[in-house]
């Protein structure tokens, strides 16, 4: 007689950008690694997850032949490949799976790709940028490797809260203005949970986004979803809506090897980093700002619709958020110019 085998399931919900993703594994060691790595970004509220990812762990080694990351849409599903993982995500069912070894880098890569896909539809993006909060407002410091993201993060004074030294998370939201001069309240996309096919979340965007071409598919039953809010409370035509952007902390660390704080703040400015002999801020035209910001966006998919959306988001961004060039020398006094 064969004794029945008990397979334990471990769920870890990782909440980045107010977008909780439930990661399911049968390996307690892998689950523990996730909890350790994503620390402040792990939430106990698994029911709030907007999608589920099943992890299939395999022995160390190459999972597929792809040298570079490849992200493509096939029959309504996103297929993501890199040498160390292969993953699929069905945006209709809000479920996916990842085949990888127990390496933390593979799941980190999958999470970055997933968030970049979700953000594209939400008027947001991931950028090569450090970000930090000072006096309740967020600042982004954008630049390629070697531009100074880690340096400026390391130089931050104690009153500055670091969101990330490597990959910044930005999403648009709308400020509701009643038009009567009263206080403004904010409509933030993660709280408006009418669902779009791709992301599972819909933002209250009064400007037209093209409808998704995702085909309708039958999805198997999944965990209960959080209740949708009353759609009338989000009707954009009842408010004068001013688009704005906010930054979220991320666990995606660079050379500083320090996970950012899991908080959010409205974006006050974006600085494009340039190292120089002194600290100064230089103005930039919107066109110049858009060109440089586009070069620093993390987006992995070859997808015409989403590329177009990101382009429009970046154009919105440079019109709403001050973008400046920050010439700085590795000296803590640079922070006297910020905030």
């Amino acid at each position: 007689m064969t004794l029945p085998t008990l397979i334990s399931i471990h769920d870890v919900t990782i909440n980045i950008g107010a977008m909780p993703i439930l990661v399911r594994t049968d390996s307690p060691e892998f689950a523990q690694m996730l909890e350790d790595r994503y620390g402040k970004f792990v939430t106990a509220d698994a029911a709030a997850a907007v999608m589920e990812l099943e992890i299939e762990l395999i022995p160390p080694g190459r999972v597929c032949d792809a040298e570079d990351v490849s992200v493509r849409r096939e029959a309504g599903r996103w297929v993501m490949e890199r040498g160390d993982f292969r993953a699929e995500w069905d945006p209709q069912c809000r479920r996916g799976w990842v085949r990888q070894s127990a390496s933390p880098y593979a799941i980190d890569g999958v999470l970055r790709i997933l968030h970049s896909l979700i953000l594209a539809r939400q008027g947001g993006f991931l950028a090569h940028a450090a970000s930090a909060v000072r006096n309740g407002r967020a600042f982004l410091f954008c630049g390629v490797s070697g531009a100074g993201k880690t340096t400026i993060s390391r130089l931050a004074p104690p009153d500055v809260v670091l969101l990330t030294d490597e990959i910044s998370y930005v999403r648009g939201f709308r400020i509701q203005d009643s038009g009567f001069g009263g206080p403004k309240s904010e409509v933030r996309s993660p709280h408006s949970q009418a669902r779009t096919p791709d992301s599972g979340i819909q933002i209250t965007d009064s400007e037209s986004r093209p409808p998704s071409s995702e085909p309708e598919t039958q999805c198997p039953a999944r965990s209960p979803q959080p209740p949708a809010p009353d759609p009338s409370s989000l009707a954009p035509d009842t408010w004068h809506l001013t688009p704005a952007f906010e930054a979220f902390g991320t666990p995606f660390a660079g050379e500083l090897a320090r996970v950012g704080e899991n908080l959010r703040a409205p974006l006050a400015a974006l600085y494009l980093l340039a190292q120089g002999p002194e600290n100064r801020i230089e103005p930039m035209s919107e066109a110049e700002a858009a060109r440089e910001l586009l070069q620093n966006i993390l987006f992995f998919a070859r997808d015409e619709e989403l590329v177009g959306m990101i382009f429009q988001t970046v154009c919105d961004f440079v019109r709403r958020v001050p973008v400046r060039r920050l010439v700085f020398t590795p000296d803590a006094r640079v922070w006297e110019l910020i905030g």
Partner: protein
Amino acid sequence: MSPLYLAHSKEIAARVLDGEMMIMSARDSTLFSLNELGTIIWQAADGATSLEEIVAQKICPEFDVEPTEALKDAEAFVRELAEHGIMLLSDQPIAPPAAASKERA
């Protein structure tokens, strides 16, 4: 010379920033920016107006240029855009559906 009609490819997203027309090819993510003259031609590319009319109506009155020379330069410009896949050219008017694109002011 037969008339040349021009329209925007469907596979682009475009915006004017600081008076500069920014165009992104959604096919390969290449970013283009046009100068003032290029922006005028781009904005007039409705599929129904020929390049000759655009030059005569929009460019020659605004700039001190000789019409034949201006048309030659304009044609070279739009053919370059067509080579990059962001503009459609035809010797017949181009139907509106083909001219539709993801553009905002």
